[in-house]
Protein backbone atom coordinates (compact mmCIF):
# COMPACT_ATOMS: atom_id res chain seq x y z
CA UNK A 1 0.00 0.00 0.00
CA UNK A 2 2.77 2.39 0.97
CA UNK A 3 4.59 1.77 -2.29
CA UNK A 4 1.40 2.60 -4.19
CA UNK A 5 0.89 5.85 -2.28
CA UNK A 6 4.51 6.82 -2.79
CA UNK A 7 4.27 6.16 -6.49
CA UNK A 8 1.09 8.25 -6.67
CA UNK A 9 2.87 11.09 -4.90
CA UNK A 10 5.69 10.89 -7.43
CA UNK A 11 3.20 11.01 -10.28
CA UNK A 12 1.43 14.01 -8.74
CA UNK A 13 4.69 15.90 -8.42
CA UNK A 14 5.68 14.94 -11.93
CA UNK A 15 2.54 16.38 -13.53
CA UNK A 16 3.58 19.76 -14.88
CA UNK A 17 1.63 22.91 -14.14
CA UNK A 18 -1.08 23.71 -16.68
CA UNK A 19 0.40 25.35 -19.74
CA UNK A 20 0.49 29.14 -19.53
CA UNK A 21 -1.69 31.14 -21.83
CA UNK A 22 -0.11 33.48 -24.33
CA UNK A 23 -0.47 36.51 -22.08
CA UNK A 24 1.93 37.43 -19.29
CA UNK A 25 -0.35 39.90 -17.51
CA UNK A 26 -3.93 38.62 -17.62
CA UNK A 27 -5.72 35.32 -18.04
CA UNK A 28 -9.19 34.17 -18.94
CA UNK A 29 -11.60 34.85 -16.11
CA UNK A 30 -9.64 37.77 -14.69
CA UNK A 31 -11.40 41.03 -13.96
CA UNK A 32 -10.49 43.31 -16.85
CA UNK A 33 -8.07 46.09 -15.87
CA UNK A 34 -9.93 49.38 -15.74
CA UNK A 35 -9.00 52.37 -17.86
CA UNK A 36 -10.30 55.91 -17.77
CA UNK A 37 -9.94 59.14 -19.67
CA UNK A 38 -7.87 57.85 -22.58
CA UNK A 39 -8.04 60.60 -25.24
CA UNK A 40 -9.86 59.35 -28.30
CA UNK A 41 -11.82 60.20 -31.41
CA UNK A 42 -15.36 59.18 -32.19
CA UNK A 43 -16.32 58.02 -35.70
CA UNK A 44 -17.75 61.47 -36.42
CA UNK A 45 -14.35 63.06 -35.72
CA UNK A 46 -15.26 64.51 -32.33
CA UNK A 47 -12.85 64.34 -29.45
CA UNK A 48 -13.91 61.97 -26.74
CA UNK A 49 -12.31 59.66 -24.21
CA UNK A 50 -12.26 55.97 -23.38
CA UNK A 51 -13.38 54.94 -19.91
CA UNK A 52 -14.28 51.33 -19.24
CA UNK A 53 -17.03 52.14 -16.73
CA UNK A 54 -18.75 54.37 -19.31
CA UNK A 55 -19.35 51.39 -21.60
CA UNK A 56 -22.77 49.87 -20.97
CA UNK A 57 -22.97 47.15 -23.59
CA UNK A 58 -23.04 43.51 -22.47
CA UNK A 59 -19.93 42.64 -24.41
CA UNK A 60 -16.92 44.89 -24.86
CA UNK A 61 -14.19 44.20 -27.39
CA UNK A 62 -10.96 46.06 -26.70
CA UNK A 63 -8.45 45.93 -29.53
CA UNK A 64 -4.90 47.26 -29.56
CA UNK A 65 -4.03 48.75 -32.93
CA UNK A 66 -1.30 50.73 -34.66
CA UNK A 67 -1.63 52.53 -37.99
CA UNK A 68 1.91 51.78 -39.13
CA UNK A 69 1.54 48.02 -38.75
CA UNK A 70 0.95 45.97 -41.94
CA UNK A 71 -1.03 43.37 -39.99
CA UNK A 72 -3.39 46.04 -38.70
CA UNK A 73 -3.75 47.43 -42.20
CA UNK A 74 -4.61 43.94 -43.42
CA UNK A 75 -7.16 43.51 -40.63
CA UNK A 76 -8.69 47.00 -40.84
CA UNK A 77 -11.62 46.05 -43.07
CA UNK A 78 -12.40 43.01 -40.97
CA UNK A 79 -12.57 45.11 -37.83
CA UNK A 80 -14.79 47.67 -39.53
CA UNK A 81 -17.03 44.83 -40.76
CA UNK A 82 -17.20 43.39 -37.26
CA UNK A 83 -18.20 46.73 -35.73
CA UNK A 84 -20.80 47.18 -38.43
CA UNK A 85 -22.21 43.64 -38.21
CA UNK A 86 -22.67 43.88 -34.45
CA UNK A 87 -23.94 47.47 -34.25
CA UNK A 88 -27.48 46.38 -33.40
CA UNK A 89 -26.29 43.93 -30.77
CA UNK A 90 -25.21 44.80 -27.22
CA UNK A 91 -21.56 44.73 -28.26
CA UNK A 92 -19.12 47.62 -28.29
CA UNK A 93 -15.73 47.54 -29.95
CA UNK A 94 -13.20 50.17 -28.93
CA UNK A 95 -9.63 50.54 -30.09
CA UNK A 96 -6.52 51.96 -28.55
CA UNK A 97 -2.94 52.48 -29.62
CA UNK A 98 0.00 52.56 -27.23
CA UNK A 99 2.70 52.69 -29.89
CA UNK A 100 5.50 55.21 -29.54
CA UNK A 101 5.38 55.80 -33.30
CA UNK A 102 4.39 59.13 -34.92
CA UNK A 103 1.91 57.64 -37.33
CA UNK A 104 0.15 55.84 -34.48
CA UNK A 105 -0.56 58.83 -32.25
CA UNK A 106 -3.78 60.86 -32.06
CA UNK A 107 -3.30 63.06 -35.13
CA UNK A 108 -2.54 59.96 -37.20
CA UNK A 109 -5.50 58.19 -35.66
CA UNK A 110 -7.84 61.06 -36.53
CA UNK A 111 -6.56 61.08 -40.10
CA UNK A 112 -6.84 57.31 -40.41
CA UNK A 113 -10.37 57.27 -39.05
CA UNK A 114 -11.49 59.79 -41.64
CA UNK A 115 -9.72 57.98 -44.49
CA UNK A 116 -11.02 54.51 -43.71
CA UNK A 117 -14.39 55.65 -42.34
CA UNK A 118 -13.63 53.95 -39.03
CA UNK A 119 -16.82 53.13 -37.18
CA UNK A 120 -15.53 52.77 -33.63
CA UNK A 121 -13.97 54.95 -30.97
CA UNK A 122 -10.18 54.87 -31.24
CA UNK A 123 -7.87 56.37 -28.63
CA UNK A 124 -4.22 56.78 -27.76
CA UNK A 125 -2.58 56.08 -24.40
CA UNK A 126 0.72 57.93 -24.25
CA UNK A 127 1.59 56.32 -20.91
CA UNK A 128 1.08 52.83 -22.40
CA UNK A 129 -0.49 51.88 -19.05
CA UNK A 130 -3.46 50.15 -20.64
CA UNK A 131 -1.11 48.09 -22.77
CA UNK A 132 0.94 47.00 -19.80
CA UNK A 133 -2.15 46.23 -17.77
CA UNK A 134 -3.58 43.98 -20.47
CA UNK A 135 -0.24 42.50 -21.48
CA UNK A 136 -0.77 43.65 -25.04
CA UNK A 137 2.18 42.37 -27.07
CA UNK A 138 0.96 42.68 -30.65
CA UNK A 139 -1.18 44.77 -32.93
CA UNK A 140 -3.90 43.80 -33.46
CA UNK A 141 -4.51 42.18 -30.07
CA UNK A 142 -8.12 41.49 -28.99
CA UNK A 143 -9.66 41.24 -25.53
CA UNK A 144 -13.33 40.37 -25.09
CA UNK A 145 -15.04 41.32 -21.84
CA UNK A 146 -18.39 40.04 -20.61
CA UNK A 147 -21.13 41.87 -18.74
CA UNK A 148 -19.24 41.55 -15.45
CA UNK A 149 -16.18 42.83 -17.28
CA UNK A 150 -14.35 39.57 -16.87
CA UNK A 151 -11.92 38.72 -19.67
CA UNK A 152 -13.43 35.89 -21.71
CA UNK A 153 -11.35 35.84 -24.89
CA UNK A 154 -7.78 36.96 -25.62
CA UNK A 155 -5.81 36.88 -28.85
CA UNK A 156 -6.36 37.04 -32.58
CA UNK A 157 -9.46 37.85 -34.56
CA UNK A 158 -8.97 34.82 -36.78
CA UNK A 159 -6.23 32.41 -37.85
CA UNK A 160 -4.73 34.54 -40.60
CA UNK A 161 -4.17 38.20 -39.83
CA UNK A 162 -2.40 39.01 -43.10
CA UNK A 163 -4.85 37.33 -45.46
CA UNK A 164 -8.59 37.39 -44.84
CA UNK A 165 -9.24 34.96 -47.68
CA UNK A 166 -7.09 32.34 -45.96
CA UNK A 167 -8.71 32.75 -42.54
CA UNK A 168 -10.74 29.67 -41.63
CA UNK A 169 -11.28 30.12 -37.91
CA UNK A 170 -13.09 33.21 -36.72
CA UNK A 171 -12.23 33.29 -33.05
CA UNK A 172 -13.45 36.77 -32.22
CA UNK A 173 -16.90 36.35 -33.75
CA UNK A 174 -17.29 32.88 -32.24
CA UNK A 175 -16.35 34.22 -28.81
CA UNK A 176 -18.69 37.20 -29.01
CA UNK A 177 -21.57 35.07 -30.39
CA UNK A 178 -21.11 32.59 -27.55
CA UNK A 179 -21.18 35.29 -24.89
CA UNK A 180 -24.29 36.88 -26.42
CA UNK A 181 -25.94 33.45 -26.16
CA UNK A 182 -24.91 33.11 -22.53
CA UNK A 183 -22.32 30.46 -23.38
CA UNK A 184 -18.57 30.08 -22.97
CA UNK A 185 -16.45 30.93 -26.01
CA UNK A 186 -15.41 27.67 -27.75
CA UNK A 187 -11.85 28.93 -27.98
CA UNK A 188 -10.93 31.24 -25.14
CA UNK A 189 -7.41 32.17 -26.04
CA UNK A 190 -5.19 32.22 -29.10
CA UNK A 191 -1.76 33.59 -29.81
CA UNK A 192 -1.96 37.20 -31.00
CA UNK A 193 -0.47 37.89 -34.44
CA UNK A 194 0.95 41.00 -36.02
CA UNK A 195 3.57 43.59 -35.10
CA UNK A 196 5.20 43.68 -31.70
CA UNK A 197 4.44 46.47 -29.23
CA UNK A 198 7.48 48.21 -27.79
CA UNK A 199 7.15 49.54 -24.26
CA UNK A 200 9.19 52.53 -23.16
CA UNK A 201 11.69 52.57 -20.30
CA UNK A 202 11.89 48.86 -19.70
Amino acid at each position, binding site marked *: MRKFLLSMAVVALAIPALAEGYNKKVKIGDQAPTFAGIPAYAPNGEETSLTLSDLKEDVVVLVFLGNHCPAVQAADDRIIDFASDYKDKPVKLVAVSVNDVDQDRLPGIKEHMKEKKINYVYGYDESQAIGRAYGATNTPHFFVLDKERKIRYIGSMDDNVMNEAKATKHYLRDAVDALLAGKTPPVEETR*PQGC*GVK*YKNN
Partner: protein
Amino acid sequence: MTLPFPRRIFFTSLAAGVLGVSMIASAPAQDAASGGVKLQPMKWSRFKERLADKKVKFTLVDVWATTCGPCKENFPHLVEMHRKFADKGLGVISLTLDDPTDTKAVAAAEKFLQEKQAAFTNVLLDENYGDGYDRLNINTIPAVFLFGPDGRELKRFTMDDPDHQFTYEEVEKDVAARLAAAAPASK
Protein backbone atom coordinates in the same frame (compact mmCIF):
# COMPACT_ATOMS: atom_id res chain seq x y z
CA MET B 1 62.39 0.94 -42.27
CA THR B 2 60.32 -1.07 -44.69
CA LEU B 3 56.86 0.31 -45.59
CA PRO B 4 54.05 -2.24 -45.23
CA PHE B 5 52.73 -1.43 -48.74
CA PRO B 6 54.07 0.09 -51.96
CA ARG B 7 55.57 3.57 -51.61
CA ARG B 8 53.17 5.24 -54.10
CA ILE B 9 50.17 4.03 -52.17
CA PHE B 10 51.70 5.23 -48.94
CA PHE B 11 52.44 8.71 -50.21
CA THR B 12 49.08 9.05 -52.00
CA SER B 13 47.17 8.13 -48.92
CA LEU B 14 49.36 10.37 -46.79
CA ALA B 15 48.66 13.29 -49.12
CA ALA B 16 44.95 12.50 -49.05
CA GLY B 17 45.06 12.36 -45.27
CA VAL B 18 46.85 15.68 -44.99
CA LEU B 19 44.42 17.26 -47.46
CA GLY B 20 41.48 15.84 -45.54
CA VAL B 21 42.77 17.07 -42.20
CA SER B 22 43.45 20.53 -43.58
CA MET B 23 39.94 20.71 -45.02
CA ILE B 24 38.41 19.77 -41.67
CA ALA B 25 40.70 22.18 -39.87
CA SER B 26 39.75 25.10 -42.12
CA ALA B 27 35.97 24.59 -41.81
CA PRO B 28 34.80 26.70 -38.87
CA ALA B 29 32.31 25.46 -36.29
CA GLN B 30 29.52 27.41 -38.06
CA ASP B 31 28.47 26.83 -41.65
CA ALA B 32 29.85 30.08 -43.08
CA ALA B 33 30.26 29.58 -46.79
CA SER B 34 33.68 30.77 -47.83
CA GLY B 35 33.49 34.05 -49.75
CA GLY B 36 29.78 34.61 -49.07
CA VAL B 37 26.93 34.66 -46.61
CA LYS B 38 24.11 32.22 -47.26
CA LEU B 39 20.58 31.60 -46.07
CA GLN B 40 19.59 27.95 -45.64
CA PRO B 41 15.96 26.86 -45.63
CA MET B 42 15.36 24.33 -42.88
CA LYS B 43 12.35 22.43 -41.63
CA TRP B 44 11.70 22.81 -37.93
CA SER B 45 12.78 19.26 -37.10
CA ARG B 46 16.10 19.76 -38.86
CA PHE B 47 16.58 23.12 -37.17
CA LYS B 48 16.04 21.48 -33.76
CA GLU B 49 18.72 18.92 -34.61
CA ARG B 50 21.06 21.67 -35.71
CA LEU B 51 20.73 23.37 -32.32
CA ALA B 52 22.67 20.56 -30.69
CA ASP B 53 26.33 21.34 -31.35
CA LYS B 54 29.02 19.77 -29.22
CA LYS B 55 31.68 21.94 -30.86
CA VAL B 56 30.46 24.99 -28.94
CA LYS B 57 29.62 25.81 -25.35
CA PHE B 58 26.38 27.60 -26.22
CA THR B 59 24.36 28.51 -29.29
CA LEU B 60 22.72 31.91 -29.56
CA VAL B 61 19.72 32.11 -31.88
CA ASP B 62 18.34 35.47 -33.02
CA VAL B 63 14.82 35.29 -34.45
CA TRP B 64 14.05 38.02 -36.97
CA ALA B 65 12.27 38.84 -40.23
CA THR B 66 12.66 41.44 -42.95
CA THR B 67 9.25 42.81 -41.95
CA CYS B 68 10.46 43.49 -38.42
CA GLY B 69 12.17 46.87 -38.08
CA PRO B 70 13.39 46.43 -34.49
CA CYS B 71 14.81 43.02 -35.46
CA LYS B 72 16.90 44.58 -38.21
CA GLU B 73 18.08 47.26 -35.78
CA ASN B 74 19.21 44.54 -33.38
CA PHE B 75 21.04 42.50 -35.99
CA PRO B 76 24.41 44.25 -35.75
CA HIS B 77 24.50 43.16 -32.09
CA LEU B 78 24.32 39.54 -33.22
CA VAL B 79 27.19 40.10 -35.64
CA GLU B 80 29.14 41.78 -32.86
CA MET B 81 28.56 38.88 -30.48
CA HIS B 82 29.80 36.46 -33.12
CA ARG B 83 32.96 38.53 -33.53
CA LYS B 84 33.55 38.79 -29.81
CA PHE B 85 32.64 35.34 -28.62
CA ALA B 86 32.95 32.81 -31.45
CA ASP B 87 36.49 31.86 -30.43
CA LYS B 88 35.35 31.64 -26.81
CA GLY B 89 32.84 28.95 -27.67
CA LEU B 90 29.68 30.77 -28.76
CA GLY B 91 27.82 29.42 -31.75
CA VAL B 92 25.55 31.93 -33.49
CA ILE B 93 22.52 31.28 -35.68
CA SER B 94 20.07 33.73 -37.22
CA LEU B 95 16.57 32.39 -37.83
CA THR B 96 14.26 34.32 -40.11
CA LEU B 97 10.52 33.77 -39.97
CA ASP B 98 9.99 35.40 -43.38
CA ASP B 99 7.52 33.60 -45.64
CA PRO B 100 9.60 30.98 -47.52
CA THR B 101 7.13 31.10 -50.44
CA ASP B 102 7.62 34.84 -50.85
CA THR B 103 10.59 35.06 -53.23
CA LYS B 104 10.89 38.82 -52.73
CA ALA B 105 11.05 38.47 -48.97
CA VAL B 106 13.61 35.68 -49.18
CA ALA B 107 15.76 37.72 -51.56
CA ALA B 108 15.48 40.70 -49.21
CA ALA B 109 16.55 38.51 -46.30
CA GLU B 110 19.59 37.24 -48.19
CA LYS B 111 20.53 40.79 -49.18
CA PHE B 112 20.19 41.97 -45.59
CA LEU B 113 22.36 39.15 -44.27
CA GLN B 114 25.06 39.91 -46.82
CA GLU B 115 24.96 43.62 -46.04
CA LYS B 116 25.34 42.88 -42.34
CA GLN B 117 28.13 40.38 -43.04
CA ALA B 118 26.36 37.59 -41.19
CA ALA B 119 29.26 35.15 -41.39
CA PHE B 120 27.53 32.41 -39.43
CA THR B 121 24.65 29.98 -39.87
CA ASN B 122 21.57 31.72 -41.23
CA VAL B 123 18.35 29.76 -41.33
CA LEU B 124 15.06 30.41 -43.11
CA LEU B 125 12.34 28.45 -41.32
CA ASP B 126 10.82 26.34 -44.07
CA GLU B 127 7.35 25.85 -42.62
CA ASN B 128 3.95 27.51 -43.11
CA TYR B 129 4.25 31.25 -42.65
CA GLY B 130 3.58 32.06 -39.00
CA ASP B 131 4.24 28.53 -37.67
CA GLY B 132 7.53 29.65 -36.18
CA TYR B 133 5.83 31.63 -33.43
CA ASP B 134 4.02 28.53 -32.16
CA ARG B 135 7.12 26.35 -32.55
CA LEU B 136 9.20 28.76 -30.51
CA ASN B 137 6.29 29.73 -28.25
CA ILE B 138 6.71 33.46 -28.75
CA ASN B 139 4.13 36.11 -29.60
CA THR B 140 6.47 38.46 -31.31
CA ILE B 141 9.95 39.14 -32.61
CA PRO B 142 12.66 40.15 -31.98
CA ALA B 143 13.45 37.22 -29.72
CA VAL B 144 16.76 35.65 -28.74
CA PHE B 145 17.35 32.14 -27.42
CA LEU B 146 20.32 30.50 -25.76
CA PHE B 147 20.83 26.74 -26.13
CA GLY B 148 23.32 24.37 -24.53
CA PRO B 149 25.58 22.06 -26.55
CA ASP B 150 22.87 19.38 -26.31
CA GLY B 151 20.33 21.71 -27.98
CA ARG B 152 18.39 22.26 -24.76
CA GLU B 153 16.95 25.76 -24.27
CA LEU B 154 18.72 27.51 -21.41
CA LYS B 155 17.25 30.98 -21.62
CA ARG B 156 15.01 33.11 -23.78
CA PHE B 157 14.91 36.86 -24.24
CA THR B 158 11.59 38.11 -25.57
CA MET B 159 9.32 41.11 -25.99
CA ASP B 160 6.35 39.17 -24.62
CA ASP B 161 6.26 40.72 -21.16
CA PRO B 162 5.51 44.46 -21.38
CA ASP B 163 7.26 44.97 -18.06
CA HIS B 164 10.38 43.19 -19.14
CA GLN B 165 11.27 43.44 -22.80
CA PHE B 166 14.83 42.37 -23.47
CA THR B 167 17.78 44.42 -24.65
CA TYR B 168 20.90 43.10 -26.35
CA GLU B 169 22.90 44.52 -23.49
CA GLU B 170 21.20 41.98 -21.28
CA VAL B 171 21.90 39.19 -23.77
CA GLU B 172 25.58 40.03 -23.98
CA LYS B 173 25.96 40.19 -20.21
CA ASP B 174 24.33 36.81 -19.82
CA VAL B 175 26.40 35.17 -22.54
CA ALA B 176 29.67 36.62 -21.27
CA ALA B 177 28.95 35.35 -17.78
CA ARG B 178 28.05 31.86 -19.00
CA LEU B 179 31.12 31.60 -21.21
CA ALA B 180 33.35 32.65 -18.34
CA ALA B 181 31.83 30.04 -16.07
CA ALA B 182 31.66 27.14 -18.51
CA ALA B 183 34.17 24.32 -18.77
CA PRO B 184 36.13 24.02 -22.06
CA ALA B 185 34.08 22.53 -24.92
CA SER B 186 34.69 18.86 -25.68
CA LYS B 187 36.53 18.41 -29.01
